């Protein structure tokens, strides 16, 4: 194996040395419980509030609007269930608007609320992988309790028009939540300027550890608790604070949000070179709009190729990547994101996501461009579907 390329930063990232350093004192030194009154506890409490302030600053929020959670999924669950149930109780509102290609942490939460009696509108996603703000507006009724639209899609990397959607929701007085797990550090976010009421984020996509996240809740937005218990997080989220990881999250956020411009400037040419190179492969397709796209996201379908076998062959060449094929999802259907943008099943099975971060280099891109085309060729040479495509028995052209 000549090289190792980690091209799955949208799945998770390594903890950075600076983040690890920021975390270590809390395991052995400042280990007090922030709820304790003595010095060691109060020292921990002060560090907790320091971390809260750092995260708030990164988002343009107030410290008291930041709540630490265990992960992005918890933040999504809390924001959506907490807000919807509060809106139902207070105003009798029982309608939620979301999009068809949200992360499962949002989609399955909405489905759970449907079982409680809520009505959910799943807005269609267009072929470019973008939600249309005017369609959000058209879906709002006097019963709408919440709009939840992701900031950037985790598979195809498309960046949604969040400020426009935020403005519409604000004008209609409807709370607006966004899952920004993929967007943090890649897109400038200011919750005040962008009219965001609730925002979910996760640490492990930004070189913080797994198991820590946060939820921004604008002052005045009513939220029912998800986790009852002690008075932590101002009585809204019980459980002794995971201070080491919270400190890690804050350090990672500070680094990620203060270097967005550099990151975008460094990753964009890498991304574009890879896209241009892969588009030279016959019957390949870039999924998602090219312009409104995360700087580190490349997502392709290759006709006649199945995603899991592609991933296995890449792994044998030292490359870690992901796919939306059914075989990698553990279900019979390929990714709901790819189906939502209108790809037929047979094409969606042949998808490949390559996602890059701070530790990738242009040499990684060159290596991928060297390794991927022959793998596609090899898999196609043994693919009866490719044979059928070449002989015109199967035709996916309308979609490509």
């Amino acid at each position, binding site marked *: 194996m000549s090289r190792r390329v980690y091209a799955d930063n949208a799945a998770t990232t390594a903890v950075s040395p600076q983040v690890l350093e920021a975390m270590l004192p809390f395991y052995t030194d400042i280990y007090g419980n922030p709820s304790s009154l003595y010095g060691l506890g109060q020292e921990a409490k002060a560090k907790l509030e320091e971390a809260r302030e750092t995260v708030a600053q990164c988002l343009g929020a107030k410290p008291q609007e930041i709540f630490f959670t265990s992960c992005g999924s918890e933040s999504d669950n809390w924001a959506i269930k907490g807000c919807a149930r509060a809106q139902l109780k207070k105003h009798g509102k029982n309608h939620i608007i979301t999009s068809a290609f949200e992360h499962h942490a949002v989609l399955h939460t909405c489905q759970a609320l449907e079982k409680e009696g809520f009505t959910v509108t799943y807005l269609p996603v267009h072929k470019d992988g973008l939600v249309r703000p005017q369609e959000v507006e058209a879906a709002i009724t006097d019963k709408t309790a919440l709009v939840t639209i992701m900031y950037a899609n985790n598979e195809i990397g498309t960046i949604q028009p969040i400020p426009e959607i935020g403005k519409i929701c604000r004008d209609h007085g409807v709370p607006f939540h966004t899952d920004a797990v993929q967007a943090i550090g890649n897109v400038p976010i200011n919750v005040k300027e962008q009219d965001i009421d609730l925002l979910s984020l996760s640490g492990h996509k930004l070189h913080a550890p797994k198991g820590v996240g946060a939820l921004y809740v604008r002052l005045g937005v009513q939220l029912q608790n998800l986790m009852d218990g002690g008075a932590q997080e101002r009585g809204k989220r019980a459980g002794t604070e995971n201070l080491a990881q919270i400190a890690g999250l804050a350090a990672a956020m500070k680094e990620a949000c203060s270097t967005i411009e550099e990151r975008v400037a460094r990753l964009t040419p890498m991304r574009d070179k890879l896209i241009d190179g892969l588009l030279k492969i016959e019957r390949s397709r870039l999924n998602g709009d090219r312009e409104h796209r995360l700087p580190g996201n490349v997502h392709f379908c290759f006709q006649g190729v199945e995603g899991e076998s592609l991933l296995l062959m890449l792994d044998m060449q030292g490359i870690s990547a992901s796919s939306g094929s059914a075989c990698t999802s553990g279900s019979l259907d390929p990714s709901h994101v790819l189906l939502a943008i209108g790809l037929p099943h047979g094409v969606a099975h042949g998808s490949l996501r390559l996602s890059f971060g701070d530790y990738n280099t242009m040499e990684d891109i060159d290596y991928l461009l060297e390794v991927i085309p022959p793998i596609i060729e090899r898999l196609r*040479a043994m693919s009866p579907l490719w044979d059928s495509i070449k002989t015109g028995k199967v035709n996916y052209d309308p979609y490509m």
Partner: protein
Amino acid sequence: MAYSQKVMDHFANPRNVGEMKEYSGVGEVGNPKCGDIMRMYIKVEGDTITDVSFMTFGCGAAIATSSMATEMIKGKTIADALKLTNKAVMEALDGLPPVKVHCSVLAEQAIKAAVADYYTRQGIDPTPFVGVLTDCDHCACEA
């Protein structure tokens, strides 16, 4: 997804892979919607399958089960080839993850489809020998 070493070996170095130009029978099972298609070619002399090859669009397990199945029927009589079960293919591969069992069924079906085609070309009704083929046993989807 944990594959056995044998599965990975047959995936990385598939046996009897590729199109066969002159064959006695060919069968194709599965469909693109489900994400796996197997095509099996056989060459028959007398009662014996003297050569076999496959083409597969599918996951690692689909490619490995196709490869293993071809090895298991090469040089065998048609009657013996028809006795090959998906379970035997799985055992020969030191097992498959539960969600991949259908791949081995597909391999068994692909052999039957190739034999059925052979019989049909001979002007013989294949049904008494191979039974009714289920193209895609693991789901009810259409191509």
